[in-house]
């Protein structure tokens, strides 16, 4: 196949001297993209399950989709998620100039919006529980809760990540590790926001017009 190059009697390069320079940040970021691919597959499985169980017969006589989802309530959550992403993105803009205070402010604001999202989601669940729409009521409700709650779990995970990152930025500034983590968290944060957009469209908007 590949007979190798012709070196005209001279010795070809057989060894590469010196440390091979691997780009640490890009290798870790590639690894993180791959992780997100597997995470996306988890959501694909959950969305597929939701699609299968989103029929009136799967409500088993309990609340159907149109009674459960409130696009207006979820609108508040959507605004919170997107604002959080905006705040985090502004933090990464501040990272370009090495502005430590700006980065930390952006992350704190992102944290606050994420917390607002979780409070809104929790309140939404409270209302649903009060009307008897609990996960064990029917196959449909189980699929609804697991999909929305898995996204919520991702929010909590991202918040924990930010909480861990803040003291690291404070203590050691922007070294390779910290910057890698910040960039990967940006990927993760935009990923969960994209998932939320899908949840909002396929669960809240689509089902409320049925």
């Amino acid at each position, binding site marked *: 196949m590949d007979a190798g190059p012709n070196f005209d009697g001279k*010795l070809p390069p057989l*060894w590469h001297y010196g*440390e091979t320079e691997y780009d640490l940040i890009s*290798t870790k970021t*590639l*690894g993180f993209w791959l992780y997100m691919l597997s995470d996306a597959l988890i959501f694909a499985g959950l969305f597929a*399950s939701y699609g299968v169980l989103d029929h009136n017969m799967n409500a*088993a006589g309990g609340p159907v989709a149109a009674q459960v989802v409130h696009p207006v309530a979820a609108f508040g959550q959507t605004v919170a998620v997107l604002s959080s992403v905006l705040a985090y993105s502004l933090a990464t803009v501040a990272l370009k100039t090495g502005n430590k205070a700006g980065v930390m402010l952006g992350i704190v604001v992102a944290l606050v919006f994420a917390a607002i999202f979780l409070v809104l989601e929790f309140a939404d669940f409270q209302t649903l529980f009060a009307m008897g729409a609990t996960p064990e009521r029917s196959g449909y409700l*189980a*699929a609804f809760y697991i999909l929305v709650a898995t996204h919520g779990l991702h929010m909590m995970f991202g918040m924990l990540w930010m909480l861990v990152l803040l003291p690291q930025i404070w203590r050691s500034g922007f070294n390779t590790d910290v910057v890698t983590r910040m960039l990967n968290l940006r990927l993760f944060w935009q990923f969960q926001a994209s998932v939320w957009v899908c949840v909002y469209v396929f669960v809240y908007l689509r089902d409320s017009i049925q």
Partner: protein
Amino acid sequence: MLVHLQGPWSPLFGRLTLASIPYANPIIIFAFAFSAIAGIAIVAPVLYYRKAGYIFREWICSVDHKKIGVMYIILGLVMMFRGFVDGMMIRTQQVTADGPASPGFLEAQHGYLPPSHFDQIYSSHGTLMILFAATPILTGLGNIIVPLQIGARDMAFPTMNAISLWLTTMGAMLIMASLFIGDFSDAGWVGLIPLTELPYSPSVGVDYWMWAIQISSVGTTLNAINIIATVIGMRAPGMRWDRLPIFTWTTLSTNIIGLTAFPVLGVALALLGADRYLGTHFYTGGMGGNLMLYTDLFWIWGHPEVYFLVLPAFGILSEVIPTFSEKPLFGYITMVAATFAIAGISWSVWLHHFFTMGAGPWVNTFFSVATMLVGIPTGVKVFNWIFTMYRGRITYTTPMLWSVAAILLLLIGGITGVMLANPAINYTVHNSVFVIAHFHCMVLLIVFAAFAAVIYWFPKVFGFKLDEAAGKRFFWFFSLGTCTVFIAMFALGFEGETRRLDYLYDPDWMPMLVIEEFGIAFYCIACFYFFKMLFVSIRDREHNRCGADPWGTARTLEWMTHSPVPFYNFAVTPHVNALDELAWRRAHGYADVVPGRYEPIHMPKNTMVPIIIGVMSFAFGFGMVWRIWWMAGLGLLGIIAMVILRSFTPDAGYTLSADDMRRLEAEASRHGIVPDTHAPLPLAEERLV
């Protein structure tokens, strides 16, 4: 939210009581005694020679991809042995429980195993063989070989690599625990729904099965990320995509499958877990659940998993056959294309596992055609191997014997697979042991290739060859056993024996069942020769020491460094000039050229983090199985805390200076390389210029 369970529960021990330990069952007592003696036989010498500290520091805490790979393979071989004992018990039960006149022993009406116990045995046989034997062996081989083949110093994420290993190991440990504490799932390795639901399986068996798979498949997913990132990011200079060895290609494609398939299994089992723990209704018959949802999700993982296993096996054959035919692999590009074609189609064939479930003719047709399409790239591969051997200078070493037999098994398994892909035939033989015989041919092809790989790369990792005489006897008895068991099983399938029977109603099946039992006896003899091969080889290891290329005709990069491979792999990273770099260097007279100078290199440090995370994951799994909430919670919080703590303590690794490298290389040469009388002395590159 939490499901209310029948039976005792205490906050401290959860559902665990003394009655959960099946000490009255003589079979389990025997299994326990056997495991305990085997455990003592391993631990006692370690303690006697005061090697516990060494084992802990240098192996358990290791982040070296080769040691991790070796531990993966040991785990896989041990689990394969247990899976084999399960298989032996299944066969023996069937041959003793055929016909109404068959006697009953112990608590069984026929044979010696009561139905529930028999069901647990075939469930653990399948789970062990697929997920805890074949998967770890192939993952381990990928771990050892891929970084060497691409000239990397280690994996992209060495610590995560060790975490993957320990998660997989802890999954296996959960299954071992189920043998002695509580019971195992009796719903098949596929988790037949709704049998796995709480009302039908109220014991902890299904929970063991579920959490063992969940924990180990997180490990497999992390490993897939690691391998893909390694192959993409860590290749040596000059290692272009068209020079990538075939085994690396197949491992890459396999891990792309693993990365995308295992999360779906995670979803399928998580929803089942929600049903069992939170009382939801994803898969229940009533209350709006959907049984087929589970079956679809499971097989959307399950079929890609089959190719996840078979593709590295194909890669192994593609390495072994050229080496022992002394020819380059025929059709490199078509081999790569066929690999990715199989990987791609693997996503669109899952429904052929349940043609009879009434999806309708058009759906069945689509999946039938898609399944038959797999035959095309697989056929390309078979012809490529045959053309590689054609007019080659073939030496029938043990790895070559395993490889040629693997091709024959692939033919039998593949052609019966195309038969099964036809829904009309499938309706007839569905759920019969014909299907079992078919997929055992396929899975045994993977095992054959795995043994070929273990014997082929063993000298690379340990520096001495395995004994060929015992290895060949091992091969012949194993092959004899395979033919005897599974050809008879094909016949029984046509005679109408259905799968998973603890009692067989038709006495006419007896002759074939007896033949199968003889096959099992051949397997037992093969087991003996396997252990003899290990024993003899380790005893005579000084005699069997070998150089960098013990086979003399190997072609790829991993054979250019010392045997055993030093922990830093290559003292100086090789510059790759051709596909089959070593064969190219040999042909051009560069094979003996060693680097002219050494440079400092950077290595990762061993760490306790992976094993701690592993132990925490076991605590989490065990706590969840027995609903000991404090233990599960501590395990989960412990894992999160370890990850956070580690992020605060950057691992700087350490640097080996050029002097260290010179000293280590001199030692490795003295230790490893046997002087080759007909080759000139190694030249330093500088002197050659």
